[in-house]
């Protein structure tokens, strides 16, 4: 479903990711692991079009996403739960939900999987993602995250951290995505809720979504992922099929533990000029 090839991208000053390859098949969960600053969020942002790659390509079901504006990527069916929630501070929860559902005008150019008619879904989800789904309804999402139902009148800025995280998730679901990008979705969630969210992730995959999930802690990722990729300072340094990784996590943890060269508090060799010249450039002005 989602194909990332030789992706090289940065934040203006030099690349952060170096030729990253990664594929997320429909109906699978692909976890990206890596230390803080490894480049996970950068990868996610590049996929949704908030960053523009200097090289490489991103494809969604064959159609290229690279170079498209973020809004067009989103319309193509890519849902995002950004790191740090980034809910709209001055919009109420209700308004978030109303906005997140695409307007009738923007017809779905693809089947929108809804929730399977399970414990939480009292609305009529379309079950398997193959049909002409209408995506999630507000009722279904609220049933899934009841906390939000109690906070409909709150503004984004008035929500607790976890509530914000839930809202971000709801926002993504209501868009009715084909591909879901979750950047550390469980951060700040109480264990019970985190558990529940991961369960949801599995189920969504079961309904045909392609899920890309980043996490700092292998523990959580291991429980849900079909594929795991380890990112170290912007390069893919290891990849495991989920089952294998579950069987012996040791290999994964080993891959995660950084190479000795990287353990010092000092910049990697040649990691740029010393700070003085970074901060105050050479040569008198004028």
């Amino acid at each position: 479903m989602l194909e990332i090839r030789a992706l090289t991208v940065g934040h203006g000053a030099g690349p952060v990711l170096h030729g990253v390859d990664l594929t997320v098949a429909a109906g699978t969960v692909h976890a990206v692991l890596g230390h803080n600053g490894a480049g996970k969020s950068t990868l996610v942002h590049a996929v949704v079009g908030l960053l523009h790659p200097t090289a490489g390509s991103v494809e969604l079901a064959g159609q290229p996403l690279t170079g498209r504006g973020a809004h067009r990527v989103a319309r193509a069916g890519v849902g995002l739960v950004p790191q740090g929630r980034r809910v709209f501070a001055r919009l109420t929860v209700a308004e978030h939900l109303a906005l997140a559902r695409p307007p009738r005008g923007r017809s779905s150019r693809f089947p929108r999987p809804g929730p399977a008619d399970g414990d939480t879904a009292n609305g009529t989800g379309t079950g398997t993602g193959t049909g002409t789904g209408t995506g999630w309804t507000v009722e279904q999402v609220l049933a899934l995250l009841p906390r939000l139902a109690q906070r409909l009148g709150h503004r984004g800025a008035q929500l607790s951290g976890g509530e914000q995280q839930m809202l971000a998730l709801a926002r993504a679901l209501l868009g009715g995505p084909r591909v879901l990008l979750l950047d550390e979705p469980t951060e700040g969630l109480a264990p019970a809720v985190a558990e529940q969210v991961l369960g949801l992730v599995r189920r969504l995959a079961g309904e045909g979504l392609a899920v890309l999930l980043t996490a700092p802690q292998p523990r959580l990722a291991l429980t849900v992922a079909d594929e795991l990729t380890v990112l170290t300072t912007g390069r893919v340094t290891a990849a495991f099929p989920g089952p294998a990784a579950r069987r012996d996590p040791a290999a994964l943890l080993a891959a995660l533990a950084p190479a000795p060269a990287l353990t010092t508090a000092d910049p990697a060799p040649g990691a740029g000029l010393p700070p003085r010249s970074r901060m105050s450039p050479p040569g008198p002005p004028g």
Partner: protein
Amino acid sequence: MTAAWQHPAPPDPARPLLALDGVGRRYGPLAAVAEVTLRVGAGERHAVIGPNGAGKSTLLALIAGTVRPSAGRIHFAGREVTTAGEARRARLGIARTFQQPALADSLSALDNVALAAWPHERRATDRGGPRGGGLWRPARYRALRTRCLDQLAQVGAASFADRPAGELSHGQRRLVEVAAALAGRPRLLLDEPAAGLTEPQAQRMLAVLRRLPAVGALVLVEHDLAFVGALAQQVTVLHEGRTLAGGTPAEVGADPRVREVYLGGAASGSTTPGSTTPGSTTPDSTTPDSTTPERE
């Protein structure tokens, strides 16, 4: 360096360092925190856990003075600080981290930390020393930064000390956030210090927090129970703004009610009326905006 610093007033073991009595905070009809009574002794590491929206961050905000209580009284180090301003409490040694990192983006990580530590220089430098309030002389500011760089190193953030905070990854920002709070050498409050950290980072954080001087106390909010178990001596469980349970990590972990609302299978909040019928708005779902802290 941290060890080298003696606290001006040695703690009096008789009195708890931090005492909350029936503290509460309402937002319109919603009681974010209600009738919380809490004692934290000097040197104690106290964890506050609870489901999302239980009122943990609000509780920290109340202690730190970011939000004023609508009921109850707060004592710190023997003084009543219920109505004291945020800045004043900070100078008494209460330092908080924000659940969402709050850093000045254009300043380097180091400067962010140094600026946070600055007001505490007064307490730090032994009495009669030069005023810490305004570090006019660059020399003194440099000295402060030396210490802060070390602080950053301890939490493992030295490698990007000189990078503008705006250019850091989320996790990196969280590290700086915690370092900023630690650098004041305060008696401390932390909101989810380990959230979004990788395993080794979390370990390192643990080590740093363990090494805090015994004169200070630690009130920490955390969802990572492994972390809590490894660090906290006392745990308070909040639910719907009220204290649900308290005790050692072991005791709390065993408590069935805690399992039910927090750990166990059921979703947090699903026990509360109104949440079972999705979409229906419970009374506390409408909130006067005028009471938002950022507007105060």
